[in-house]
């Protein structure tokens, strides 16, 4: 359990979100991502990556049309995997959105970087391991030592931008994407002015694909329209995806002083662990995380205007999530609007909750709850938003995430109050 007071108003700094950068299967820019999410479009499709054709993993959310060489210097490209390319591009977009693309702060030591990673650079690693076993150890390139490492994206963002503040990597399962934001908020609490925080993943390559085949929660359905349908009786697992998002978070007062647009504030977070694939237990773990996040945010259940669900797509896990909402929010748990835009794009592991956080901020800004693409006939007692976006005044959002290895996290975001803009 965390309990660090990231959202507390009492004698502490508050953490504002001032920048968002998105690289997603349904959009390479935040605007196009939101347009697709709001419309409830699904971009799930057959896996087309070379070397993956024979795998029983048939459907995924691929990031298509992404040209890293147009965005990132060759010196960085040669020593990084695709998951880092996504992170570098998203970080650039987030910094630009925050108005910090040229100079992020007075001192390089006042800017930190935190990323979460679920699998590191699998494609790069596979290439070098093939050289190791095909040609010998002398043919393995030196950048193997850093490129497939979980920490690669944090390191490369900080090196490329010259950020020398507190840096970290959260490796705590898919839910680590939310934990990374809490970690960044804590760094702001401790005095770091700005933290670049996010997660992006690239799990669609042969080696990475094979690694996922062991997950019994993985959907192997061949029809993209039927492969990922959480909260329905047809739920058959989850669909993986590429991409993610990066945020710029900073001290709220500093953001206001410099005239930045405050897009949201990070109000509360909590995390629990209930064991790998123990979805029955995740009910209690997730409810506990929700209560902890609400406590930290000083938020009553009825203040939550929308829930971005984890939506694992496994009947037992979906049931646990629906019941966790009821456990934590009481009677309001069946009334609060719930959505899961990820059914249209897949789950990019640690990147998935980051994309949900981006969608939550955008939803609050636009007053629209995006729908859950491709999901109808809900078989749980929750108010899942389907088909089309639902207009609503949104002040507070709850984002949930679980990982296959047993992590459960909840994050409360507050929209930018008028005086905060």
């Amino acid at each position, binding site marked *: 359990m965390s309990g660090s007071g990231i959202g507390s108003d009492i004698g502490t700094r508050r953490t504002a979100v001032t920048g968002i950068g998105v690289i997603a299967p349904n959009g390479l820019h935040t605007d196009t991502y939101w347009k697709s999410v709001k419309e409830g479009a699904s971009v799930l499709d057959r896996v087309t990556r070379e070397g993956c054709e024979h795998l029983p993993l048939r459907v995924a959310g691929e990031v298509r049309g992404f040209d890293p060489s147009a965005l990132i*210097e*060759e*010196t*960085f*490209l*040669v*020593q990084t995997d695709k998951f880092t390319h996504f992170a570098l591009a998203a970080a650039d977009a987030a910094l630009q959105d925050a108005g910090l693309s040229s100079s992020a702060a007075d001192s390089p030591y006042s800017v930190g970087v935190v990323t979460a990673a679920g699998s590191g650079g699998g494609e790069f690693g596979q290439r070098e391991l093939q050289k190791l076993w095909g040609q010998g150890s*002398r*043919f393995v*390139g*030196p*950048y193997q*030592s*850093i490129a497939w490492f979980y920490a690669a994206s944090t390191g490369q963002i900080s090196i490329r931008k010259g950020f020398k503040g507190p840096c970290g990597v959260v490796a705590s399962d898919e839910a680590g994407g939310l934990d990374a934001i809490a970690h960044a908020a804590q760094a702001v609490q401790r005095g770091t002015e700005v933290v670049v925080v996010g997660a992006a993943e690239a799990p669609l390559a042969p080696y990475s694909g094979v690694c996922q085949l062991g997950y019994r929660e993985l959907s192997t359905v061949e029809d993209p329209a039927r492969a990922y349908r959480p909260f329905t009786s047809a739920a058959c697992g989850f669909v993986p995806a590429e991409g993610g998002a990066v945020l710029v978070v900073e001290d709220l007062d500093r953001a206001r002083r410099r005239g930045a647009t405050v897009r949201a504030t990070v109000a509360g977070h909590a995390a629990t662990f209930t064991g790998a694939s123990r979805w029955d237990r995740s009910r209690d773990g997730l409810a506990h995380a929700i209560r902890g996040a609400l406590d930290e945010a000083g938020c009553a259940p009825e203040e939550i205007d929308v829930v971005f669900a984890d939506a694992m797509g496994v009947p037992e896990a979906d049931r646990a999530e629906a019941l966790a909402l009821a456990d934590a929010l009481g009677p309001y748990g069946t009334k609060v609007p719930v959505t899961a835009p990820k059914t249209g794009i897949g789950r990019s592991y640690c990147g998935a909750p980051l994309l949900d956080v981006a969608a939550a901020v955008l939803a609050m800004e636009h007053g629209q709850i995006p729908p859950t693409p491709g999901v109808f006939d809900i078989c749980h007692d929750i108010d899942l938003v389907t088909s089309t976006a639902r207009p609503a005044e949104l002040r507070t959002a709850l984002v949930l995430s679980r990982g296959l290895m047993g992590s459960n996290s909840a994050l409360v975001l507050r929209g930018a109050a008028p005086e905060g803009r």
Partner: protein
Amino acid sequence: MTTQVTQVTVEELATLMKKGAGVTVDPRDLASRADAPFAEFGLDSLGLLGIVGELENRHGQALPTDAERCKSPRAFLDLVNGALTTGA
């Protein structure tokens, strides 16, 4: 038995820097600033290590461990070509 000596040229080093580390450098610039640190050209220590490995594979012989610690193009080429000449 005669030793086939292949000198590593500035042009070859520039090509290796591009291929191995993504560093674009004009060979003439590399030659005229041969005593400047590799860092000034944008080559880091892992990049140089990769170039050493590539040369070892091409020439089928190990290079001195000092090769990857050379600070400048001149120091590197002198050491490498010296080693290739003597077959050390």
